[in-house]
């Protein structure tokens, strides 16, 4: 995806008209793209659902184009070199394809599901530890309360509204959230880096969650 470049002619005079025209064309080109993003965000959960249901290769390709550069950026938060991040990104995206059938759009947004795959692989690789994880087929799993169609709508709304809510957080809460999710460091290490008491870090994270939950809850 290339963005149209704004070319301004440095020679003001006879070329002014041409320059203004190119400015106008560029703006006209940019506008529909911006509008599209603002009013009609791509529903990645549907796209991933098509990968899950019918093995749609085109759908996978568009998931790849959107998420792979983000997965790579997430992995590179751990100061690894670009080559390692490349290989892990390929690994994560191949798991996305292979496990797509397990994806359940009523439970999680596509971004959430992909995040958990990238997170688990990052733990395996960098921490050299196992990641104990629940098994959705485990018969001892406590049953979920029934999921109604309203819950599904809510889950999707949540995904779309979450960004806005995270941006609205006070910056000190957003900061600890970023450190906790992007960087593989414990609450104690966050406290150390920010020179704060551990209790403050824990309460900022708790407050951030509470705030996001409350404002999403009020939507209904």
């Amino acid at each position: 995806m290339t963005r149209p470049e704004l070319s301004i002619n440095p020679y003001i005079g006879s070329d002014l008209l041409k320059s203004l025209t190119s400015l106008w064309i560029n703006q006209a080109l940019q506008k529909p793209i911006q509008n599209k993003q603002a009013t009609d965000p791509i529903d990645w959960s549907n796209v991933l659902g098509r990968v899950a249901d019918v093995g749609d290769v085109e759908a996978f390709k568009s998931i790849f184009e959107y998420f792979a550069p983000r997965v790579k950026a997430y992995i590179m938060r751990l100061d690894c070199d670009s080559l390692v991040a490349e290989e892990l990104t390929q690994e994560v995206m191949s798991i996305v394809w292979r496990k797509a059938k397990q994806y359940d759009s009523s439970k999680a947004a596509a971004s959430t599901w992909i995040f958990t795959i990238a997170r688990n692989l990052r733990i395996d690789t960098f921490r050299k530890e196992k990641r104990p994880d629940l098994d959705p087929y485990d018969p001892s799993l406590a049953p979920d309360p029934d999921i109604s169609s309203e819950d599904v709508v809510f889950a999707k709304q949540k995904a779309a509204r979450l960004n806005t809510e995270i941006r609205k957080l006070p910056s000190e809460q957003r900061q600890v959230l970023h450190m906790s999710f992007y960087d593989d460091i414990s609450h104690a290490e966050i406290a150390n880096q920010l020179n704060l008491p551990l209790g403050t870090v824990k309460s900022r994270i708790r407050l951030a969650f509470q705030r996001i939950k409350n404002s999403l809850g009020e939507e209904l």
Partner: protein
Amino acid sequence: MIINYHPPEDLLFAYSAGDLAEAWSLMIATHVSLCSSCRHQMFDAEAIGGSLIENITPELLENDTYEKTLAIVKNEEQLAKPELLSQSDYSDVLPYPLLQYTGADIDDLPWKRLGKDAFHIPLVKGRNGELARLLRIQEGKAVPEHGHNGTELTMVLSGSFSDENGQFVRGDVETADIDVIHQPSADAGEDCICLVVTDAPLEFTSPLARLFQRFVNI
């Protein structure tokens, strides 16, 4: 099943973000298997992770990343598919995350004696002194009274135990910090099996128990 005692929220958040050490992660993964309310809280926390990964500044990929990914997919399709687990591969007592560590159900485990009335099986030893173990207290018996030099989480898997802070049943997690001194005892009727995670040695009240402590790692 109603669960009254949950692990501290911050552990659930750290687990969802991927920051939690393995021994504590085992506790959280096991608890969310049995507790649907904590599981949903975990899903919510993971949704924040999803949103953050969507909003990260993307990195440029190499030209052939997509092709290489497809090549991995093709390679793996040629490998034998792992067989799905059948009902008998699971345990009634040990949720799956725990079963992966024990490798066998409770009656087939090599329980080691721990004091007079209890048995244990160490599962995970972490880098910072964390220790996850299964503990089996014989019915009607108590473990020696102890305090804590750090945090101790105890989750019931079968049977139940009681102490100064209440009665704990399957799925319940008791959190004991430095200021807690307690003496859990298994209720009558059946042995109490728990998952216990600590990050520092316990502080036994009785000199005999302290002496014994030198020989086992608790």
